[in-house]
């Protein structure tokens, strides 16, 4: 709009009303440009990611409301029914339980664990990462050392160990996944804070007499939190996968409902005769994790237009 209105009215008097653009760049060129294609790709990732995620999450949230049989109700007369029989959309398992109901109720447990774990690891990671980046010195040394040590640890083995020793309850599993994931957030936050603390506004705040902790919390963290939460979204995908791997190995929660990995490991023995017991729960996991990953990718690649208005 700025170009059109800025043109002096007099100069266009002699030329046709519709002046051809002075630039050789046509609309087709712009559409084919890398930046445009990148923006479109990000847009599609966001759209498809949202659809995939919602396709899984909405039924999971509504599991109690939907007209489904109880997830733990056994009907030995209706064992291993294929999908779409007798109102069992996903079929039934070896004990005649409705597979869709099991997947949705198990999904509630998986998702709760995933969300809680991500919240905890996000909080730990941001606090420790910011402290390490801002204060430096021995704080940085300690945090960085712990990060490094955990990188070289046998991760899944340690998780299994803790769960096997302390029992597969929801708090233990949540805690274990959170501990497994905080380094990633911490490392990113640390590197961003390192950049941020050299900026003039930090010196300004210090001259104004703000306490160091106040500067960190009120000024630096708000500037890095957006990107840090983006990573947290990607961690949610990993948390769901990690939880399903644990429960596949028998280290998942049993009550109130078996989670996805457990459902798949239950179905493993019947794979040749009843393909749906493994395939369908697996596809649900893939759909959901692909959705979350696409969302995270799309949000990261999205051009940041808001900067202009701010």
């Amino acid at each position, binding site marked *: 709009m700025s170009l059109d209105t800025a043109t002096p009215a007099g100069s266009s008097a002699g030329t046709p009303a519709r002046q051809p653009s002075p630039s050789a760049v046509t609309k087709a060129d712009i559409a084919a440009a*890398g930046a445009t294609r990148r923006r479109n*790709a990000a847009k599609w990732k966001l759209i498809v990611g949202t659809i995939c995620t919602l396709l899984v999450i909405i039924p999971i949230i509504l599991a109690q409301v939907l007209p489904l049989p109880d997830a733990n109700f056994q009907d030995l007369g209706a064992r291993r029914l294929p999908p779409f029989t007798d109102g069992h959309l996903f079929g039934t398992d070896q004990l005649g339980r409705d597979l869709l109901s099991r997947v949705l109720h198990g999904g509630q447990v998986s998702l709760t664990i995933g969300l809680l774990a991500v919240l905890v690891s996000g909080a730990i990671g941001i606090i420790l990462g910011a402290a390490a980046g801002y204060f430096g010195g021995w704080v940085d040394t300690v945090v960085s050392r712990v990060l490094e040590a955990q990188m070289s640890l046998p991760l899944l*083995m340690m998780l299994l160990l803790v769960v*096997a*020793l*302390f029992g597969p309850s929801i708090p233990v599993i949540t805690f274990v996944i959170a501990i497994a994931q905080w380094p990633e957030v911490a490392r990113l936050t640390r590197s961003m804070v390192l950049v941020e603390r050299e900026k003039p506004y930090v010196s300004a705040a210090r001259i104004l007499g703000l306490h160091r902790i106040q500067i960190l919390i009120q000024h630096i963290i708000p500037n890095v939190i957006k990107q840090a939460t983006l990573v947290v979204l990607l961690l949610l995908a990993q948390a769901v996968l990690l939880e399903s791997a644990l429960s*596949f190995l028998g280290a998942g929660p049993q009550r109130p409902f078996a989670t996805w*990995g457990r459902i798949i*490991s239950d179905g493993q023995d019947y794979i040749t005769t009843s393909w749906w017991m493994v395939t369908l729960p697996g596809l649900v996991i*893939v759909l959901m994790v692909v959705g979350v990953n696409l969302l995270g990718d799309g949000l990261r690649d999205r051009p940041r237009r808001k900067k202009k208005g701010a």
Partner: protein
Amino acid sequence: MTNYILKRLGQGLLTVFLTVSTVFILIRMAPGDPAVSYAGPLATSEQLAAVREQFGLDRPVLEQYWIFLQQLITGNLGQSYSFQAPAMQVVAERMPYTLTLAAAAILLTAVVAIPLGVWMSRRPDTGREFGVNVLTIAGQSMPDFWTGIMLLTGFAVLIPIFPASGFATWGGLVLPTITIAILQIALISRMVRREMTANFAAPYLTVARSRGVKNSVLTWRYAMGNSAIPVFTALGTRFAAMLNGVVVVEVVFAWPGVGSLIVRALETRDYPLIQATVLLTALLAVGVQLLIDLAYPLLDPRVRLGKAATA
């Protein structure tokens, strides 16, 4: 150089020591009694006490830790409860299987992921590249146990090309390797793409191109030369991580490696076996990490060991 290696060795050994100590504490803190799982649920309390005494579990924890430290130095972590053999020996027998699987998987990953990532970075944001990009997202979104079962059903049961489990023939290596590699290829190829894209945008590459350097040389000598360190590091770190037992895949394919061993050791609360597994895998992982660092000067002559600035 020697100083650097010694310093890194010291750090590595410290990490290993802290790891095994953490595991020692965790095991003792946890509820559950190995004597019960050893002697069975029907054992009398006298039998249980005898078992505890035999394994030294009746002594104070600090004394147990002292004994454990002495065992660490001699490298003999005691008898495995369930295998009736030295724990280190049991783990060492399983190690080659895990090593074979990890090496095969990382080889397949490197062979597929590097060209794939380069291809993606040469044609960024085209329709086909977008398609491949989405495929890699799918690859990193599939739970490996599920992929494993699917491959197993497809290519061992329905179309019996490969053996379903174990490591009787080399064919048995194919399916577990592919299962592991799918995730790794997805991660590494995306990383290669990111690194290469950044290098293609760098001024030195524009200069080289304007001087008429051939495209293939630009890609493989210039851009790849500068992407080599991060890519190599990522591959090495992934390999080190796999040595800790590709637990899930080993369980799915009944692979006789360390991963399936640890699952069994945990179930039976076989303390010496758990500790031996953790010790050996941590040692190997730290060793591989050190080798990766030592290889940096080979990949990039600008790197001088010991003088590397910590960015």
